[in-house]
Protein backbone atom coordinates (compact mmCIF):
# COMPACT_ATOMS: atom_id res chain seq x y z
CA UNK A 1 0.00 0.00 0.00
CA UNK A 2 1.31 3.50 -0.88
CA UNK A 3 2.29 5.77 1.91
CA UNK A 4 0.73 9.25 1.68
CA UNK A 5 2.71 10.71 4.57
CA UNK A 6 6.22 9.85 5.68
CA UNK A 7 7.87 11.73 8.55
CA UNK A 8 11.47 10.95 9.46
CA UNK A 9 13.20 12.64 12.42
CA UNK A 10 10.77 15.49 11.93
CA UNK A 11 11.15 18.52 14.21
CA UNK A 12 8.82 21.51 14.12
CA UNK A 13 9.17 24.91 15.75
CA UNK A 14 7.93 28.48 15.35
CA UNK A 15 11.22 29.97 16.63
CA UNK A 16 14.77 28.84 17.31
CA UNK A 17 14.14 28.88 21.07
CA UNK A 18 11.34 26.35 21.32
CA UNK A 19 10.82 23.01 19.58
CA UNK A 20 7.19 21.91 19.48
CA UNK A 21 7.67 18.52 17.79
CA UNK A 22 10.98 16.80 18.34
CA UNK A 23 12.40 14.24 15.89
CA UNK A 24 9.28 12.15 15.35
CA UNK A 25 8.88 9.27 12.93
CA UNK A 26 5.56 8.06 11.55
CA UNK A 27 3.85 7.21 8.29
CA UNK A 28 0.29 7.02 7.02
CA UNK A 29 -0.84 4.61 4.31
CA UNK A 30 -3.15 5.66 1.51
CA UNK A 31 -6.83 5.21 2.37
CA UNK A 32 -6.27 5.21 6.15
CA UNK A 33 -8.40 7.03 8.71
CA UNK A 34 -6.07 8.52 11.34
CA UNK A 35 -6.76 10.29 14.61
CA UNK A 36 -4.07 12.42 16.20
CA UNK A 37 -4.80 13.22 19.83
CA UNK A 38 -2.95 15.08 22.55
CA UNK A 39 -3.38 17.69 25.24
CA UNK A 40 -3.82 21.36 24.39
CA UNK A 41 -0.49 22.82 23.26
CA UNK A 42 1.01 19.40 22.61
CA UNK A 43 1.64 20.23 18.94
CA UNK A 44 -1.26 18.43 17.17
CA UNK A 45 -2.31 21.47 15.13
CA UNK A 46 1.35 22.36 14.48
CA UNK A 47 1.87 18.92 12.99
CA UNK A 48 -1.25 19.33 10.85
CA UNK A 49 0.00 22.72 9.59
CA UNK A 50 3.22 21.12 8.47
CA UNK A 51 1.20 18.53 6.51
CA UNK A 52 -0.27 21.24 4.28
CA UNK A 53 3.01 23.14 4.11
CA UNK A 54 2.06 26.16 6.21
CA UNK A 55 4.99 25.34 8.49
CA UNK A 56 8.21 23.91 7.11
CA UNK A 57 10.21 21.34 9.07
CA UNK A 58 12.95 22.76 11.29
CA UNK A 59 14.79 19.45 10.94
CA UNK A 60 14.24 16.08 9.35
CA UNK A 61 12.09 15.08 6.44
CA UNK A 62 8.35 15.24 5.77
CA UNK A 63 6.93 13.85 2.55
CA UNK A 64 3.24 14.41 1.76
CA UNK A 65 1.78 12.93 -1.43
CA UNK A 66 5.29 12.40 -2.74
CA UNK A 67 6.30 16.02 -2.12
CA UNK A 68 9.16 16.85 0.28
CA UNK A 69 7.72 19.73 2.32
CA UNK A 70 11.07 21.14 3.50
CA UNK A 71 12.27 21.71 -0.08
CA UNK A 72 8.99 22.39 -1.84
CA UNK A 73 8.65 25.41 -4.16
CA UNK A 74 5.61 27.69 -3.95
CA UNK A 75 4.13 26.38 -7.20
CA UNK A 76 4.61 22.72 -6.20
CA UNK A 77 3.10 23.45 -2.79
CA UNK A 78 0.08 25.00 -4.52
CA UNK A 79 -0.19 21.88 -6.68
CA UNK A 80 -0.11 19.66 -3.56
CA UNK A 81 -2.71 21.78 -1.76
CA UNK A 82 -5.07 21.46 -4.71
CA UNK A 83 -5.26 17.75 -3.88
CA UNK A 84 -5.82 18.23 -0.15
CA UNK A 85 -9.06 19.15 1.60
CA UNK A 86 -8.61 21.06 4.84
CA UNK A 87 -11.16 21.60 7.62
CA UNK A 88 -10.19 24.22 10.18
CA UNK A 89 -11.49 24.62 13.69
CA UNK A 90 -12.27 28.28 12.94
CA UNK A 91 -13.85 27.28 9.56
CA UNK A 92 -11.85 29.81 7.48
CA UNK A 93 -14.74 30.65 5.19
CA UNK A 94 -14.56 33.71 2.94
CA UNK A 95 -17.04 36.08 4.58
CA UNK A 96 -17.87 38.10 1.50
CA UNK A 97 -18.74 35.00 -0.54
CA UNK A 98 -21.99 33.02 -0.35
CA UNK A 99 -21.73 29.52 1.09
CA UNK A 100 -22.28 28.12 -2.40
CA UNK A 101 -19.25 30.01 -3.71
CA UNK A 102 -17.22 29.02 -0.65
CA UNK A 103 -17.85 25.36 -1.44
CA UNK A 104 -16.92 26.04 -5.06
CA UNK A 105 -13.51 27.48 -4.12
CA UNK A 106 -11.37 24.31 -4.57
CA UNK A 107 -13.24 23.52 -7.80
CA UNK A 108 -12.55 27.01 -9.17
CA UNK A 109 -8.87 26.69 -8.20
CA UNK A 110 -8.68 23.27 -9.84
CA UNK A 111 -10.22 24.66 -13.01
CA UNK A 112 -13.36 22.52 -13.13
CA UNK A 113 -16.01 23.41 -15.69
CA UNK A 114 -18.96 25.42 -14.49
CA UNK A 115 -21.63 22.72 -14.93
CA UNK A 116 -19.50 20.14 -13.09
CA UNK A 117 -18.88 22.66 -10.35
CA UNK A 118 -22.57 23.47 -9.94
CA UNK A 119 -23.65 19.80 -9.85
CA UNK A 120 -20.99 18.94 -7.29
CA UNK A 121 -21.90 21.91 -5.08
CA UNK A 122 -25.64 21.10 -5.26
CA UNK A 123 -24.96 17.50 -4.25
CA UNK A 124 -22.71 18.54 -1.35
CA UNK A 125 -25.21 21.13 -0.13
CA UNK A 126 -27.78 18.32 0.07
CA UNK A 127 -25.34 16.10 2.00
CA UNK A 128 -24.61 18.80 4.57
CA UNK A 129 -28.36 19.70 4.75
CA UNK A 130 -27.81 23.29 3.68
CA UNK A 131 -29.43 23.32 0.24
CA UNK A 132 -32.01 25.86 1.37
CA UNK A 133 -29.29 28.26 2.58
CA UNK A 134 -27.02 28.23 -0.47
CA UNK A 135 -27.32 31.98 -1.10
CA UNK A 136 -26.50 32.99 2.46
CA UNK A 137 -23.19 34.38 3.69
CA UNK A 138 -21.11 32.56 6.34
CA UNK A 139 -21.84 35.08 9.10
CA UNK A 140 -25.57 34.47 8.65
CA UNK A 141 -25.10 30.83 9.70
CA UNK A 142 -24.54 29.18 13.08
CA UNK A 143 -21.14 27.72 14.00
CA UNK A 144 -22.34 24.19 13.24
CA UNK A 145 -23.67 25.22 9.84
CA UNK A 146 -20.44 27.04 9.00
CA UNK A 147 -18.42 23.95 9.84
CA UNK A 148 -20.68 21.88 7.58
CA UNK A 149 -19.94 24.36 4.77
CA UNK A 150 -16.21 24.02 5.50
CA UNK A 151 -16.61 20.23 5.39
CA UNK A 152 -18.40 20.40 2.04
CA UNK A 153 -15.64 22.64 0.70
CA UNK A 154 -12.98 20.16 1.82
CA UNK A 155 -14.78 17.33 0.00
CA UNK A 156 -15.80 19.22 -3.14
CA UNK A 157 -12.79 18.38 -5.32
CA UNK A 158 -12.46 14.72 -4.23
CA UNK A 159 -9.06 15.22 -2.59
CA UNK A 160 -6.58 12.41 -1.97
CA UNK A 161 -6.10 13.62 1.59
CA UNK A 162 -8.38 15.36 4.08
CA UNK A 163 -6.82 17.17 7.03
CA UNK A 164 -9.24 18.20 9.78
CA UNK A 165 -8.24 20.29 12.79
CA UNK A 166 -10.70 19.65 15.61
CA UNK A 167 -13.62 19.71 13.16
CA UNK A 168 -16.29 19.17 15.81
CA UNK A 169 -14.64 21.29 18.53
CA UNK A 170 -17.58 23.49 19.48
CA UNK A 171 -20.41 21.89 17.53
CA UNK A 172 -23.83 20.63 18.56
CA UNK A 173 -24.41 16.86 18.41
CA UNK A 174 -26.37 17.06 15.13
CA UNK A 175 -23.65 18.97 13.24
CA UNK A 176 -20.88 16.88 14.81
CA UNK A 177 -22.69 13.68 13.75
CA UNK A 178 -23.01 14.97 10.17
CA UNK A 179 -19.30 15.86 10.05
CA UNK A 180 -18.21 12.39 11.28
CA UNK A 181 -20.56 10.71 8.78
CA UNK A 182 -19.12 12.74 5.91
CA UNK A 183 -15.53 11.99 6.94
CA UNK A 184 -16.33 8.28 7.27
CA UNK A 185 -18.11 8.33 3.89
CA UNK A 186 -15.16 9.99 2.16
CA UNK A 187 -12.83 7.38 3.63
CA UNK A 188 -14.92 4.29 2.93
CA UNK A 189 -16.53 5.23 -0.38
CA UNK A 190 -13.88 7.40 -2.03
CA UNK A 191 -10.85 5.79 -0.29
CA UNK A 192 -9.68 9.25 0.77
CA UNK A 193 -6.99 9.35 3.44
CA UNK A 194 -8.36 11.26 6.42
CA UNK A 195 -6.29 12.73 9.26
CA UNK A 196 -8.22 14.25 12.12
CA UNK A 197 -6.67 16.17 14.98
CA UNK A 198 -8.97 16.01 18.00
CA UNK A 199 -9.16 15.89 21.77
CA UNK A 200 -11.62 13.01 21.82
CA UNK A 201 -12.27 10.18 19.40
CA UNK A 202 -16.03 9.74 18.97
CA UNK A 203 -17.39 6.51 20.37
CA UNK A 204 -19.68 6.05 17.42
CA UNK A 205 -16.93 5.45 14.83
CA UNK A 206 -17.93 2.51 12.62
CA UNK A 207 -14.66 2.12 10.74
CA UNK A 208 -11.12 0.96 11.45
CA UNK A 209 -8.74 3.74 12.23
CA UNK A 210 -5.22 4.44 13.37
CA UNK A 211 -4.61 6.48 16.48
CA UNK A 212 -1.48 8.53 17.16
CA UNK A 213 -0.97 10.37 20.42
CA UNK A 214 1.35 13.35 20.83
CA UNK A 215 2.95 14.06 24.17
CA UNK A 216 6.00 16.16 25.12
CA UNK A 217 6.91 16.65 21.46
CA UNK A 218 6.91 12.92 20.68
CA UNK A 219 4.38 10.77 18.85
CA UNK A 220 3.37 7.17 19.48
CA UNK A 221 0.74 4.91 18.02
CA UNK A 222 -2.04 3.80 20.38
CA UNK A 223 -3.41 0.29 19.88
Amino acid at each position, binding site marked *: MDRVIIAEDLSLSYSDDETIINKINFSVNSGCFVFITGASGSGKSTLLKSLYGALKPAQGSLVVGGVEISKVSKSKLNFL*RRHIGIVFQDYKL*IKEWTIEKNIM*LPLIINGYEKNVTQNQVDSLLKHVRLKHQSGKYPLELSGGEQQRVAMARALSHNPILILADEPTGNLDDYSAGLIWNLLEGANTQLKTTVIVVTHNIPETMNIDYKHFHIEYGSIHEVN
Partner: protein
Amino acid sequence: MKSIRNHFSLVVALVSILFSIQVFTIIERSISAYKENLASSYSIIVVSQLSIDEKTMKSFSSLVDEVSELNPDHVIQRLNTKIDPKNLELLKLTLPNFYKLKLTHFPTPTEVENLTNNLLNKKSITKVENFSHNHDSTFKLLLLFKDVIAVFSLSMFVVTILLIIKELKIWQFMHNERMSIMGLFGAPIWLSSAVLFRLAIVDAIIASILSFILFTYLSTSFWVEEQLSYIGIEIIFFDQVMDFAILSGVALFLSVLLALLIVIGHKEEV
Protein backbone atom coordinates in the same frame (compact mmCIF):
# COMPACT_ATOMS: atom_id res chain seq x y z
CA MET B 1 -24.13 49.41 0.47
CA LYS B 2 -21.01 47.63 1.70
CA SER B 3 -19.78 47.34 -1.88
CA ILE B 4 -20.24 51.10 -2.45
CA ARG B 5 -18.34 51.80 0.76
CA ASN B 6 -15.51 49.51 -0.40
CA HIS B 7 -15.11 51.57 -3.56
CA PHE B 8 -15.81 55.01 -2.12
CA SER B 9 -12.58 55.75 -0.23
CA LEU B 10 -10.18 54.82 -3.02
CA VAL B 11 -12.31 56.58 -5.64
CA VAL B 12 -12.29 59.79 -3.55
CA ALA B 13 -8.51 59.59 -3.12
CA LEU B 14 -7.98 58.97 -6.83
CA VAL B 15 -10.33 61.78 -7.88
CA SER B 16 -8.44 64.26 -5.68
CA ILE B 17 -5.12 63.20 -7.23
CA LEU B 18 -6.56 63.53 -10.73
CA PHE B 19 -8.07 66.88 -9.76
CA SER B 20 -4.70 68.24 -8.58
CA ILE B 21 -2.96 66.96 -11.72
CA GLN B 22 -5.53 68.56 -14.03
CA VAL B 23 -5.53 71.85 -12.08
CA PHE B 24 -1.74 71.95 -12.39
CA THR B 25 -2.03 71.27 -16.14
CA ILE B 26 -4.59 74.05 -16.54
CA ILE B 27 -2.40 76.51 -14.65
CA GLU B 28 0.62 75.53 -16.77
CA ARG B 29 -1.41 76.12 -19.93
CA SER B 30 -2.72 79.46 -18.62
CA ILE B 31 0.79 80.65 -17.76
CA SER B 32 2.11 79.62 -21.18
CA ALA B 33 -0.77 81.38 -22.92
CA TYR B 34 -0.26 84.45 -20.74
CA LYS B 35 3.47 84.42 -21.51
CA GLU B 36 2.70 84.30 -25.23
CA ASN B 37 0.41 87.28 -24.78
CA LEU B 38 3.11 89.14 -22.94
CA ALA B 39 5.71 88.23 -25.56
CA SER B 40 3.53 89.60 -28.33
CA SER B 41 2.97 92.87 -26.51
CA TYR B 42 6.54 93.20 -25.22
CA SER B 43 9.26 94.78 -27.32
CA ILE B 44 12.68 96.39 -27.01
CA ILE B 45 13.49 99.72 -28.59
CA VAL B 46 16.95 100.19 -30.09
CA VAL B 47 18.42 103.56 -31.09
CA SER B 48 21.27 103.46 -33.61
CA GLN B 49 23.26 106.10 -35.40
CA LEU B 50 23.65 103.83 -38.40
CA SER B 51 21.11 101.77 -40.21
CA ILE B 52 21.10 98.09 -39.19
CA ASP B 53 19.51 95.41 -41.33
CA GLU B 54 17.30 92.66 -39.92
CA LYS B 55 19.90 89.91 -40.40
CA THR B 56 22.51 91.83 -38.39
CA MET B 57 19.97 92.61 -35.69
CA LYS B 58 18.99 88.94 -35.41
CA SER B 59 22.67 87.96 -35.14
CA PHE B 60 22.81 89.62 -31.69
CA SER B 61 20.58 86.97 -30.18
CA SER B 62 18.37 84.07 -31.19
CA LEU B 63 15.77 85.71 -28.99
CA VAL B 64 15.08 88.33 -31.67
CA ASP B 65 12.09 87.30 -33.73
CA GLU B 66 11.02 90.37 -35.69
CA VAL B 67 12.71 93.69 -36.40
CA SER B 68 10.79 96.74 -37.55
CA GLU B 69 12.12 100.20 -38.13
CA LEU B 70 10.15 102.97 -36.46
CA ASN B 71 9.26 105.82 -38.70
CA PRO B 72 9.97 109.21 -37.01
CA ASP B 73 7.59 111.08 -39.37
CA HIS B 74 4.61 111.18 -37.07
CA VAL B 75 6.76 112.78 -34.32
CA ILE B 76 8.12 115.32 -36.76
CA GLN B 77 4.62 116.04 -38.01
CA ARG B 78 3.70 117.30 -34.56
CA LEU B 79 6.53 119.84 -34.73
CA ASN B 80 5.44 120.90 -38.21
CA THR B 81 3.66 124.08 -37.22
CA LYS B 82 6.41 125.49 -35.05
CA ILE B 83 9.57 124.70 -37.05
CA ASP B 84 10.64 125.86 -40.43
CA PRO B 85 10.28 123.09 -43.10
CA LYS B 86 13.97 123.40 -44.02
CA ASN B 87 14.99 122.87 -40.42
CA LEU B 88 12.57 120.00 -40.20
CA GLU B 89 14.29 118.27 -43.13
CA LEU B 90 17.63 118.88 -41.45
CA LEU B 91 16.29 117.46 -38.19
CA LYS B 92 15.00 114.45 -40.04
CA LEU B 93 18.42 113.82 -41.49
CA THR B 94 20.19 114.08 -38.15
CA LEU B 95 17.74 111.85 -36.26
CA PRO B 96 19.09 108.36 -35.37
CA ASN B 97 17.39 105.16 -36.51
CA PHE B 98 14.78 103.62 -34.20
CA TYR B 99 14.08 99.89 -34.21
CA LYS B 100 11.48 97.84 -32.43
CA LEU B 101 12.50 94.26 -31.61
CA LYS B 102 9.87 91.59 -31.06
CA LEU B 103 11.11 88.51 -29.21
CA THR B 104 10.43 84.82 -29.73
CA HIS B 105 9.15 84.41 -26.17
CA PHE B 106 8.67 86.35 -22.99
CA PRO B 107 12.30 86.63 -21.80
CA THR B 108 13.76 86.10 -18.37
CA PRO B 109 15.47 89.14 -16.76
CA THR B 110 18.88 87.56 -17.56
CA GLU B 111 17.96 87.13 -21.22
CA VAL B 112 16.88 90.77 -21.37
CA GLU B 113 20.14 91.88 -19.75
CA ASN B 114 22.29 89.76 -22.09
CA LEU B 115 20.49 91.02 -25.17
CA THR B 116 20.81 94.64 -24.01
CA ASN B 117 24.56 94.21 -23.41
CA ASN B 118 25.05 92.53 -26.80
CA LEU B 119 23.27 95.39 -28.54
CA LEU B 120 25.17 98.09 -26.64
CA ASN B 121 28.46 96.47 -27.60
CA LYS B 122 27.87 97.67 -31.14
CA LYS B 123 29.31 101.15 -31.43
CA SER B 124 26.52 102.59 -33.56
CA ILE B 125 23.84 101.64 -30.99
CA THR B 126 23.53 104.44 -28.52
CA LYS B 127 20.49 103.46 -26.53
CA VAL B 128 18.46 100.34 -25.74
CA GLU B 129 15.16 100.68 -23.93
CA ASN B 130 14.15 97.30 -22.48
CA PHE B 131 11.45 98.47 -20.03
CA SER B 132 13.21 96.27 -17.50
CA HIS B 133 11.34 97.59 -14.48
CA ASN B 134 7.90 96.66 -15.83
CA HIS B 135 9.24 93.46 -17.32
CA ASP B 136 10.85 92.27 -14.08
CA SER B 137 7.79 92.83 -11.92
CA THR B 138 5.52 91.02 -14.42
CA PHE B 139 7.95 88.15 -14.69
CA LYS B 140 8.31 87.84 -10.90
CA LEU B 141 4.54 87.88 -10.52
CA LEU B 142 4.26 85.04 -13.02
CA LEU B 143 6.93 83.02 -11.21
CA LEU B 144 5.27 83.61 -7.86
CA PHE B 145 1.90 82.50 -9.23
CA LYS B 146 3.46 79.39 -10.73
CA ASP B 147 5.26 78.54 -7.46
CA VAL B 148 2.11 79.01 -5.39
CA ILE B 149 0.18 76.65 -7.66
CA ALA B 150 3.02 74.12 -7.64
CA VAL B 151 3.09 74.14 -3.83
CA PHE B 152 -0.70 73.83 -3.72
CA SER B 153 -0.72 70.87 -6.14
CA LEU B 154 2.19 69.20 -4.38
CA SER B 155 0.55 69.49 -0.96
CA MET B 156 -2.69 68.14 -2.38
CA PHE B 157 -0.75 65.27 -3.93
CA VAL B 158 1.01 64.49 -0.63
CA VAL B 159 -2.25 64.54 1.34
CA THR B 160 -3.84 62.21 -1.19
CA ILE B 161 -0.86 59.84 -1.14
CA LEU B 162 -1.27 59.69 2.66
CA LEU B 163 -4.95 58.89 2.09
CA ILE B 164 -3.97 56.12 -0.31
CA ILE B 165 -1.45 54.67 2.18
CA LYS B 166 -4.24 54.56 4.76
CA GLU B 167 -6.44 52.90 2.16
CA LEU B 168 -3.66 50.40 1.50
CA LYS B 169 -3.73 49.32 5.13
CA ILE B 170 -7.53 48.91 5.07
CA TRP B 171 -7.33 46.90 1.85
CA GLN B 172 -4.54 44.76 3.27
CA PHE B 173 -6.75 43.95 6.23
CA MET B 174 -9.79 43.35 4.00
CA HIS B 175 -8.13 41.14 1.42
CA ASN B 176 -5.48 39.32 3.45
CA GLU B 177 -7.91 36.81 4.91
CA ARG B 178 -9.44 35.87 1.56
CA MET B 179 -6.03 35.61 -0.11
CA SER B 180 -4.73 33.40 2.75
CA ILE B 181 -7.73 31.07 2.56
CA MET B 182 -7.43 30.77 -1.22
CA GLY B 183 -3.70 30.10 -0.78
CA LEU B 184 -4.46 27.27 1.65
CA PHE B 185 -6.40 25.55 -1.12
CA GLY B 186 -3.57 26.00 -3.60
CA ALA B 187 -4.69 29.09 -5.49
CA PRO B 188 -1.85 30.71 -7.43
CA ILE B 189 -1.14 34.31 -6.52
CA TRP B 190 -2.77 35.68 -9.71
CA LEU B 191 -6.03 33.95 -8.81
CA SER B 192 -6.07 34.87 -5.13
CA SER B 193 -5.35 38.52 -5.96
CA ALA B 194 -7.70 38.69 -8.98
CA VAL B 195 -10.52 40.26 -6.94
CA LEU B 196 -8.13 42.88 -5.63
CA PHE B 197 -6.95 43.87 -9.11
CA ARG B 198 -10.52 43.88 -10.42
CA LEU B 199 -11.52 46.23 -7.60
CA ALA B 200 -8.50 48.47 -8.27
CA ILE B 201 -9.24 48.66 -12.00
CA VAL B 202 -12.95 49.35 -11.43
CA ASP B 203 -12.07 52.13 -8.96
CA ALA B 204 -9.62 53.65 -11.43
CA ILE B 205 -12.29 53.64 -14.15
CA ILE B 206 -14.89 55.20 -11.82
CA ALA B 207 -12.40 57.90 -10.73
CA SER B 208 -11.48 58.66 -14.36
CA ILE B 209 -15.13 58.93 -15.40
CA LEU B 210 -15.93 61.22 -12.45
CA SER B 211 -12.97 63.45 -13.35
CA PHE B 212 -14.07 63.47 -17.00
CA ILE B 213 -17.57 64.60 -16.00
CA LEU B 214 -16.22 67.21 -13.59
CA PHE B 215 -13.75 68.80 -16.02
CA THR B 216 -16.10 68.58 -19.01
CA TYR B 217 -18.67 70.44 -16.95
CA LEU B 218 -16.10 73.03 -15.81
CA SER B 219 -14.75 73.55 -19.34
CA THR B 220 -18.22 74.50 -20.56
CA SER B 221 -19.10 76.59 -17.54
CA PHE B 222 -19.73 80.28 -18.05
CA TRP B 223 -17.76 81.20 -14.92
CA VAL B 224 -14.55 79.58 -16.23
CA GLU B 225 -14.94 81.21 -19.65
CA GLU B 226 -15.45 84.56 -17.96
CA GLN B 227 -12.33 84.18 -15.81
CA LEU B 228 -10.19 83.26 -18.82
CA SER B 229 -11.51 86.19 -20.84
CA TYR B 230 -10.67 88.55 -17.94
CA ILE B 231 -7.04 87.45 -18.18
CA GLY B 232 -7.26 87.70 -21.96
CA ILE B 233 -6.18 84.15 -22.77
CA GLU B 234 -7.67 81.22 -24.59
CA ILE B 235 -6.63 77.73 -23.51
CA ILE B 236 -7.83 74.14 -23.83
CA PHE B 237 -9.27 73.70 -20.36
CA PHE B 238 -9.83 69.96 -20.71
CA ASP B 239 -8.83 67.90 -23.76
CA GLN B 240 -11.41 65.13 -23.74
CA VAL B 241 -9.04 62.73 -25.49
CA MET B 242 -5.49 63.49 -24.38
CA ASP B 243 -6.21 64.77 -20.87
CA PHE B 244 -8.68 61.98 -20.23
CA ALA B 245 -6.13 59.42 -21.42
CA ILE B 246 -3.48 60.88 -19.09
CA LEU B 247 -5.84 60.99 -16.10
CA SER B 248 -7.05 57.43 -16.75
CA GLY B 249 -3.46 56.25 -17.06
CA VAL B 250 -2.47 57.88 -13.76
CA ALA B 251 -5.55 56.47 -11.97
CA LEU B 252 -4.92 52.99 -13.36
CA PHE B 253 -1.22 53.12 -12.52
CA LEU B 254 -1.83 54.23 -8.92
CA SER B 255 -4.61 51.75 -8.17
CA VAL B 256 -2.76 48.81 -9.74
CA LEU B 257 0.37 49.87 -7.80
CA LEU B 258 -1.73 49.85 -4.63
CA ALA B 259 -2.98 46.33 -5.41
CA LEU B 260 0.56 45.19 -6.23
CA LEU B 261 1.87 46.54 -2.91
CA ILE B 262 -0.84 44.57 -1.11
CA VAL B 263 0.06 41.39 -2.98
CA ILE B 264 3.78 41.90 -2.26
CA GLY B 265 3.07 42.68 1.39
CA HIS B 266 0.77 39.66 1.79
CA LYS B 267 2.01 37.11 4.28
CA GLU B 268 0.61 33.63 4.49
CA GLU B 269 -0.94 32.70 7.79
CA VAL B 270 0.97 30.18 9.90
